[in-house]
């Protein structure tokens, strides 16, 4: 049974017709134990079925441990969105938890951005990211019912695209209560920067850049 309505499938086919570089969804699951693993795999496969430029590889988190380590996957369900084609590249863009509700738009926007190879960030932010000399890990906590969250997720992923030093995760807060507890998440979106800094809400790009500069100072 299809998860997407026919009209939405058609809209996405039209949107994906603009994809010029192939995109690969590397999905990690474990069918017996993981909440929403099945649904996350189904979403990945259905999205991939809508364009010949999107492919999906499904791995078992336990059996395919080497590949999970290669992608630095530490929890499931997980999707790494990577560029395929002749010049494949893993930008460090990850979705942890089911990309349902409003977060489905994050998945779609990420696919478009990775294929385009252009983040759309301002020249100032790009310059800062290009000169970054230390790792930055962004974790954006979300819920599927949060309309503000995709803005925060997409901005974190835009940053990941601009620097190999930056990795950015969407983390569905309800599915990973231990992380929500660890980072004291009681509201979303909440962006955690390198474990020590955090930002509430979907902040404008200059504000997030200021927080990032503070975090790496």
């Amino acid at each position, binding site marked *: 049974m299809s998860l997407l309505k026919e009209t*939405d499938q058609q*809209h996405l086919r*039209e949107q994906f017709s603009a994809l010029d570089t192939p995109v690969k969804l590397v999905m990690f699951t474990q069918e017996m134990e993981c909440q929403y693993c099945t649904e996350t795999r189904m979403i990945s496969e259905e999205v991939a079925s809508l364009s010949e430029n999107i492919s999906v590889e499904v791995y078992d988190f336990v059996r395919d441990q080497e590949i999970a380590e290669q992608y630095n996957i530490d929890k499931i369900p997980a999707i790494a969105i990577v560029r395929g084609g002749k010049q494949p590249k893993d930008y460090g863009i990850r979705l942890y938890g089911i990309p349902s509700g409003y977060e*489905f738009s994050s998945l779609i926007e990420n696919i478009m951005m990775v294929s385009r190879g252009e983040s759309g960030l301002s020249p100032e932010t790009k310059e800062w990211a290009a000169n970054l000399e230390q790792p930055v890990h962004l974790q954006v906590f979300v819920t599927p019912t949060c309309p503000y969250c995709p803005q925060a997720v997409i901005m974190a992923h835009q940053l990941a695209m601009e620097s190999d030093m930056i990795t950015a995760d969407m983390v569905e807060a309800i599915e990973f209560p231990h992380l929500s507890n660890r980072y004291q998440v*009681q*509201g979303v979106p909440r962006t955690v920067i390198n474990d020590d800094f955090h930002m509430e809400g979907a902040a404008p*790009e*200059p*504000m997030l850049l200021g927080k990032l500069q503070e975090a790496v100072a």
Partner: protein
Amino acid sequence: MSLDLNLNIGLSTVGSSANHYDVIIIGGGPGGASAAIYTARADLRTLVIDKGLTAGALGITGKISNYPGVPGPVTGAELVEIMRGQAESFGAEFLTDKVVGIDMKAEPKMVMAGTGAFYAKAIILATGSMGRTSSVKGEEELLGRGVSYCATCDGAFFRNKTVAVIGNNDEALEETLFLTKFTEKIHLIVPTPDMKARDVLMAEVSANPKIDIRMGTALKEISGNGTVQAVRVKPRGGAEEELPVSGAFVYLQGGKPITDYLMAQLETKPDGCLMVDAEMQTAVPGIFAIGDLLCSHIKQAVIAAADGVIAAVAADKYINGREKVKQDWK
């Protein structure tokens, strides 16, 4: 499949004509509705996105007798409904929703609302000035640690807990009803003697046994050690009281221009107002602002309506590449 994944909400439907408009007007008060009358009558496909009939300053005004051509007295909501009906008669569409962001750089420009993405060649901002000017003690420190402005986003964190909702309008009551799905008990702190919301919402809230309504009660402080633990409230003429809660959802209003959804893409003056040129256009071509959002503005419905007409005519000029405005009279 039993699980509803809601994959269609927030789905960016680029390529779909359904979500593409000539003009999107954000805010359906006198300014927004007047602009819609003119853009729709000029054959521009027009969408007005508005939080609700009683979300703005006019919608909660009780008695109006000085609006030209309408002797009254009428309520603000009645006056807005007349304007909306007039705009709809010319083909304008109205959507009850909350705008959460705008991408002004995109072409066409994108408006993200709770129900999804919408696109337009021109946007008219008409969100008024009922934004808050100050916060209560403890609110900023505990934001994201129990203080929230979005029940649909954060309600799931408060399963089987007691929370407070502070507000008196449609939004506060809708969010209160949403929270009843998760929480054990809700203290609804209404700062005014009366609610400023639709009757149907007030009836639903009053009938829900999970909701403890406290009319005419001011929020004085949100307190907690790391996370929200209590709210301190004071009823009119009564003694202060501390209510133990795990969350505080704040929907209070004030007198500041509402521009948070612009995400700093337009420069504002220190008091939060927007600057425009003589045609109501902001620094970004195709983005217009009207009514109580503007600086040095007389806060009257008829002024906002006039602003709306100027912006509508200018939007038509912008969209159709005209050098001069097209007169609507002979």
